[in-house]
Every structure is written in structure tokens, then in C-alpha cells.
């Protein structure tokens, strides 16, 4: 082959604290190629890009194995600055723009065009003036390559998000030595027509000879613009395929895969209880996890899973129902309407919540285990409190007794009920959260990310506990989790949330293809 790959990454492996997150990834891209990278959350996409960009998080955790070549030359990328000088550009998911500067100033930020003036001739080049005419002209040129009508004089502050995204791209295009451009989920914040426009722009950028790395979970976009597609899963390189050799369904299947260590729950004999919670048109304004009109019914005695990719809104549902973020819509618990935006009302209606932010929202880290376990019921229902008219005192003996019961039942490893929760391991902290929720004696238990940040052995224990509660006490449980395998191991039904809405409800033993398609925002083809 006459043309050399512009970028070649060979045998890239990376471990964080002994956990392997990338395992021998190989990647090579030709100039002018659009290369897609797909994978679930945690598949290793961002780690790979961090390595390519020389981010300090890589080097401060022991570096990586493998080699990187740019245009045939082996390079060691030690810092983002060096990556830039090698011609690697990146369009970030979060905008790195100064709101009170104009589009052109942002495009030229720290690369301003300078011209000498009277003072700089005497005191040196640090005091040169900005050549605004040239800066505006250059910016205009970069924006025109994107074929977008943004005014280079406009301030960033007033622009729609889509235009901010294009400004970021223009900034990269304006760099004369740009050879490789990385897009990290660029369409996540864009509307449909803007996304189309962006895809068009990506094609044109590639046509000018720049290699594009395109990271997204929207499979139809990948198919539309990419020449080649690499699928990552659990840090491993699953496959690299040319566009014409694959399709959305195959990609979805490859992305989800069946690498689970958990056994998938068997389809249950379809005994469905009465509806216990009905959610209609629920919208939750939770930053980063916006919910935009969810309709969902929870049946008594089931374990309902809520899955989907990060940022699609699955986390927002339980938080909204519990009144922790501004919420609108309608929620009925056992037929009675629930007052929204009021945590006390949700607790009074018999809902208990185990937050995904265990250390921030779920626990009082510097308080005792017994107080943590009792607190939910104490404030929610006045249990553990003795009252005399307007005066009340907490019932320490009852709190102790309750804590000791749960420490034994759930096997919480601690020195005693007085130990502070901060000193416990993640798994035991999660058990304290479970004990706290159970002490509230809920009708429905809402659990968010129950296994986040706890080690593998403890994960299984926590999941078993949830399953036991459901089987033995008939408790209705709604589990939200980013780990599909986990949901499939304990749930009776799984709702997949995409773009703030329910994309579909699946059985745990439905095919990988269907899960993958729903998570990627594709309708399930009934024939498939």
C-alpha cells in the first residue's frame, strides 16, 4: 500500500489500580478516513482517547503498554500540548469555550495572530497587538469549511449549543498542522438537523485529508459517516469492520455481547401483580440525566430494571419520583396521586430510595451505622421517637436494637453499631443503605446503581440481597443500573431509557441485538 496510516496504535493495554480497562487494542487509520469507535459505557473508549491525547490521568496511574505511531514515526505522547503539536485535535463533549469572548477570539484562543506595534518594538514580542482582521478572516475560513452560518463576531454566551459545538470544531480546523481529529460523542447535545449538519461536516473534513476518529453510541450515525468501525467491549477489541460488511443490528449485538459473569434470570411464569406505581409523562430536570416524558407501570412484586447508556436519563427517573430534582408529570402509587417535588410526600407514600450517589446523598458518612439505619424512618415516619406533647426524644434503645438486627441479617462487617459509616467498605456501606431503606418499611424500593464502586464479590452479595427481598418479602423493587448484565440477572422486566424516554421494555432473556438496538436509539425491527 502506498499510503501509510496516519495513526497506528498497537497492543495498547492499560490498568487502573490492578483492574485491566484496556487489553491489547489495535487501531490504524488512513488519512481521510472516518473511523468509528463504538462501545457501552466503560468499554474503554475514553481511556483509549486519553492515551492518544497524553492526558495526565494516564501517566499519573502508571502509563500504558503498547506503542503509537504517527505517519509511521513512533511517538511518545506525554501531554495534551504535545498531542496538539503532533497534529491531533479533539472536540470535547463538554465545551471548552469562554462565554464572554467572540467566536473568533475563541477559535484563536492562545494562538492569536499578532502584529508588532510601537511598544512591542521596544519591549519585545510579548506586548504585540492582536491582529483582529486576520483573526476574523481565519475564523471565517474555518467556519466556511464547516459550511455553517455562524457570525465570527458573535459572543459565545448567546449561541445555541449546536453553534458552540461548531465553534469548537472550527478551532481545531484552524490549526494548520491538524492531521487527526477526534470527536467524542459530538452529537449528544445536538438536535437532529444539527446532528445531520455535523455529520456532513465530518465527511467534508475527511475529504480534505484529515483522519477522523468518531466516538458515539448512535449506531445509525456510525453507519452513515464511517468508513471503518471498531467495536470495544469491556476493554477488549471485539472487531474492526468496514462499513459495507456490517449493519446496525450486528453492531448492536457486538457492542452488548454476552460476556456476563452473572447468570441471566430465567423468564418467569408470567404472573403479573396489580399495578402498584403508574408513571405518566414524567419529566425530570436533572442535569446530565434529563427525563423527557417517561410512561411506565410498575407491577406489585416485580423487580423492574431501568437500563440505558449514561446521560440518557435513566438515573433521573428515581430521583424525580423521590422529589430530589424539579419534576413534572403524574405519578400514582397504589392508585393515589403522588405530590411531586416533595421528598416527604414520596416517603410518606411508601417509597424508599437508595441513591446512586451513595456517599453524597445516601449516607451520613461521619455518623454511626445505627443512626444511618434509623434516620430514614425517624424523619419519614417518626419511628424511634418518643413524644410527650410538643417534646420528643429519640429512642436510643430501639435504634440500637434495630441496627443490631440488620447487622446480623445483612451480615454488615463492622466493629459495632457505633462505628462511623465512612470507615466501612463500599459493599458494607451499600448494605447500610439497604438496611436504612428496609427500616422505612417501604411499599416500593427504588435502587439506583446498587453495585457502583463496590468490588466484584460484594456486588453479587448486594444483588442476591435484592433478589431475596423480592422473593421472600414480595417487595416491589425498581433497579436502575448502567450494568445491563446486572439487570438481566435479577430483573423480571427491563425498561431501556434513551433520550429521556422509554425506548422499549424487554425481558431479561431477550436477545443482545434488541438490547443493543434500544440502547442505541433504534427501533426494534420486528423481523429481526
Amino acid at each position, binding site marked *: 500500500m502506498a499510503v501509510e496510516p496516519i495513526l497506528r496504535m498497537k497492543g495498547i493495554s492499560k490498568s487502573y489500580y490492578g483492574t485491566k480497562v484496556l487489553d491489547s487494542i489495535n487501531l490504524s487509520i488512513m488519512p481521510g478516513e472516518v473511523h468509528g469507535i463504538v462501545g457501552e459505557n466503560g468499554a474503554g473508549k475514553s481511556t483509549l482517547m486519553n492515551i492518544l491525547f497524553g492526558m495526565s490521568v494516564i501517566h499519573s496511574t502508571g502509563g500504558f503498554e503498547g506503542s503509537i505511531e504517527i505517519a509511521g514515526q513512533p511517538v511518545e505522547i506525554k501531554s495534551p500540548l504535545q498531542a496538539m503539536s503532533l497534529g491531533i485535535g479533539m472536540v470535547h463533549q463538554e465545551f471548552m469555550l469562554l462565554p464572554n469572548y467572540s467566536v473568533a477570539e475563541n477559535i484563536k484562543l492562545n494562538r492569536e495572530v499578532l502584529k508588532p506595534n510601537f511598544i512591542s518594538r521596544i519591549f519585545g514580542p510579548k506586548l504585540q497587538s492582536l491582529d483582529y482582521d486576520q483573526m476574523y478572516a481565519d475564523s471565517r475560513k474555518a467556519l466556511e469549511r464547516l459550511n455553517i452560518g455562524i457570525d465570527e463576531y458573535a459572543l459565545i454566551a448567546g449561541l445555541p449549543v449546536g453553534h458552540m459545538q461548531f465553534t469548537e470544531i472550527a478551532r481545531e480546523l484552524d490549526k494548520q498542522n491538524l492531521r487527526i481529529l477526534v470527536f467524542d460523542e459530538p452529537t449528544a447535545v445536538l438536535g437532529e438537523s444539527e446532528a445531520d449538519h455535523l455529520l456532513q461536516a465530518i465527511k467534508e473534513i475527511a475529504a480534505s485529508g484529515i483522519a477522523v476518529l468518531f466516538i458515539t453510541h448512535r449506531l445509525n450515525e456510525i453507519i452513515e459517516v464511517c468508513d471503518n468501525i471498531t467495536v470495544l467491549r469491556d476493554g477488549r477489541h471485539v472487531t474492526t469492520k468496514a462499513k459495507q460488511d456490517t449493519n446496525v443490528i450486528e453492531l448492536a449485538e457486538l457492542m452488548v455481547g454476552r460476556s456476563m459473569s452473572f447468570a441471566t434470570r430465567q423468564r418467569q411464569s408470567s404472573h403479573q401483580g396489580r399495578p402498584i406505581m403508574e408513571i405518566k409523562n414524567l419529566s425530570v430536570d436533572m442535569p446530565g440525566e434529563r427525563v423527557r416524558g417517561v410512561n411506565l407501570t410498575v407491577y406489585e412484586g416485580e423487580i423492574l430494571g431501568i437500563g440505558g447508556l449514561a446521560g440518557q436519563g435513566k438515573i433521573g427517573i428515581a430521583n424525580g419520583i423521590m422529589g*430530589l430534582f424539579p419534576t413534572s408529570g403524574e405519578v400514582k402509587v397504589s392508585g393515589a396521586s403522588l405530590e411531586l417535588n416533595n421528598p416527604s410526600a414520596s416517603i410518606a407514600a411508601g417509597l424508599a430510595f437508595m441513591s446512586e450517589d451513595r456517599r*453524597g446523598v*445516601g449516607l*451520613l458518612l461521619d455518623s454511626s451505622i445505627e443512626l444511618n439505619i434509623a434516620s430514614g424512618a*425517624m424523619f419519614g415516619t417518626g419511628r424511634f*421517637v418518643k413524644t410527650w406533647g410538643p417534646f*420528643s426524644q429519640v429512642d436510643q434503645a430501639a435504634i440500637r436494637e434495630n441496627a443490631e438486627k440488620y447487622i446480623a441479617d445483612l451480615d454488615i462487617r463492622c466493629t459495632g453499631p457505633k462505628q462511623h459509616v465512612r470507615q466501612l467498605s463500599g459493599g458494607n456501606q451499600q448494605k447500610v443503605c439497604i438496611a436504612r431503606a428496609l427500616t422505612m418499611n417501604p411499599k416500593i424500593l427504588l435502587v439506583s446503581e446498587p453495585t457502583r464502586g463496590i468490588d466484584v464479590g460484594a456486588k453479587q452479595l448486594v444483588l442476591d440481597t435484592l433478589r431475596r427481598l423480592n422473593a421472600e418479602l414480595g417487595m416491589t423493587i425498581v433497579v436502575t443500573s448502567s450494568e445491563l448484565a446486572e439487570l438481566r440477572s435479577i430483573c423480571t422486566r427491563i425498561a431501556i431509557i434513551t433520550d429521556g424516554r422509554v425506548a422499549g421494555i424487554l425481558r431479561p432473556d431477550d436477545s443482545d441485538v434488541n438490547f443493543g438496538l434500544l440502547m442505541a436509539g433504534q427501533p426494534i425491527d420486528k423481523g429481526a
Partner: protein
Amino acid sequence: MRVKSAFKDMDIARLIIAAFFVFLCIAAVALRLNISELISSSLTQMGMWGVLVLAMLPAIVSGTGPNFGVSLGIVCGLLGGLTALELAYRMEGVVAFPPGALFLVAILFSLPFALLVGIGYGWLLNRVKGSEMMIATYVGFSIVSIMKLAWVFLPFKNPEMAWPIGRGVRVQIALANRGLAQILNNFLAFRIGDVVVPTGLLLAVALAAFLMWLFLRSQTGMAMATAGSNPRFAEASGIVVDHQRIIGTVLSTVLGAVGILVYSQSYGFLQLYEAPMFMPFVAVAAILIGGASVKKATITHVIIGTVLFLGIQVVAVPVANAFTADWSSMGEISRKIIQNGVILYALTQAGGE
């Protein structure tokens, strides 16, 4: 055991201060100072400041940080005191208040002021989350300045309080005339050798501390402490964090009002105008020396802090004077260094988890 664990909480800065106190005590003995008098006067000072230091507790526990604006409460207490004296004057010939009753009337009069001011102040602190201490300090300074005007224009007629010429109330108002001076100190007071124990004063502080202890174990108290230690957890538990912070602020303000009356009766005068300006700093420094942080405090911290800081304050002056005979402000200077140093130290620790 509780005291032991509180000492364990103390970090290096507090240990240095405790060591300094021990050093001062040894020096006082070695210099043959009048130990009985030092002990008597320490006990009195601790009693005088006890309730004011206690006023820091609900503020810290509810999450608004040490109440640098407790001058608001102090001013309410002074207002209650003045109103009581005015009432006694106006009712002369109709009702003769025994001193004990008059003291209670002063406290009763100060409560509605403290309650209303506390609610407003709490509302303000809820709007400036994250910079409560800074705002509180300036609220304190401002109210003292505003009250300087008010003291001049308030329509008090009692000649014991008024300037002989012109209008307004005096800078210091003697309480002895109405029998209010040392009314708590002398209640059940007794002597051990030459040491005078101001029983009533210490009992008053103990009572206030006991009531606070009970409150912190009530449902509302628990909710307040939860709101203070983790607001997001509290919200998720159905606690309205802003209400709890207002409750904490009101309690702190009320304790400030009661505290200044307890202080003034021992001092023998109500001090107006400039006097309340720097009182909050003493109370803040005391509870911090006791082992509290700007986020966490207990009754034990209040007690240890009051004993340590006011003990140093009493003992340092004569010891320093004995060392530097011709530099008599040395004691005052060392007290200021400790007071402000400890506050500074605690603030630098505030951000770290």
C-alpha cells in the same frame, strides 16, 4: 470517656493551646500569684461567657457555621434588658419588681426580638449558602453600628439609663440600682477557702447546656443536625434543610440574647454602643479551641473551649504582667493572638474533608 474522646479529637493546634494553659497555671503558682482569686475569677468568666459560647453550637450543628453574627442576639438581649428596666421605672409605685423577677422579665422581653431577628437572619443566611461566615461577620458589624443610632433615638425615659443632658441611653447602664448586679452569681454562692464559687451562674449555664443537649436528641434536633452534616442526604430523607437552618439560627440568636443578660448581670452593667462589636469573636474562638470545627460541634466542645479559652484569658494577664512589669497590655495581646489565631486556623481547615 466522652471527655477523653473529645481530647482525642483535638489536633495539634488545640494541644498547643492546652499546653499553653497548663504552662500559665504552673507559672501562676511559681510566681506566687493569688491562686484563689485567679480560680474565683476564672469560674466567673467561664460562667459569664458560657451561654454565649453555647450559642455557637446550634449554628454550627445546623450547618451555617460559627455564628459570627451573634451580635444580633446580643443586641436583642440588651434591648430586652433596657425594656425591663424601663418597665420597672414606669411601674414604680404600682408594682415593685423583685430583682429575680425583673431578670426573668428582661429575658422574656428579649425573646420576641431574638425570635423575629433570628428568623430574618436565618432567611438571609439561606440566601448566601457557602459564605455564611463572611456575611455573618458583616451583619454583626452592621447591626452594632445601626444600633448606635437606635440607642440614641429609642424613647426610653428611665433616668438611670438616660444621658443627664441630651437624648439617648448611656454607654454603660448600672444594674446595681435595681438589684440585678450579680443576681445569678450570688445565688447559692459559697466559699471554699478564699475561692468564691458563683453557683447560680454556673447552674444557669449548666441548665442551658442541658436543655440544648435534650433538644439535640429530639426529632427536630436530630433533623437539624442531619441537615447540617449532609444537606443532600437530609433533603432525600424529607427534611426541609432551609427550615432547619432557620431553627438553628433562631436558637443561636436566642442564646445570644440570654447569654448577654447572663454576662451583664455578672459584669454589673449593660454595655451598649461599641461593646458588642467583638464579643462574637471570643465565643467563636472558645468553641473552636474546645475542638469544634466550622462544620462539627458538640456540647463537650463548648465546655472544654469555655474552660480553656477563658481560663487562659484570666490567668494570662497577671502572669504576663509579672514577667513584663512595664508592659501591662501583654496579657491582652496574647489573648488576642490566641483568639484570632484559632479562628484563622479553623477557617483554613474548613474546606478539607
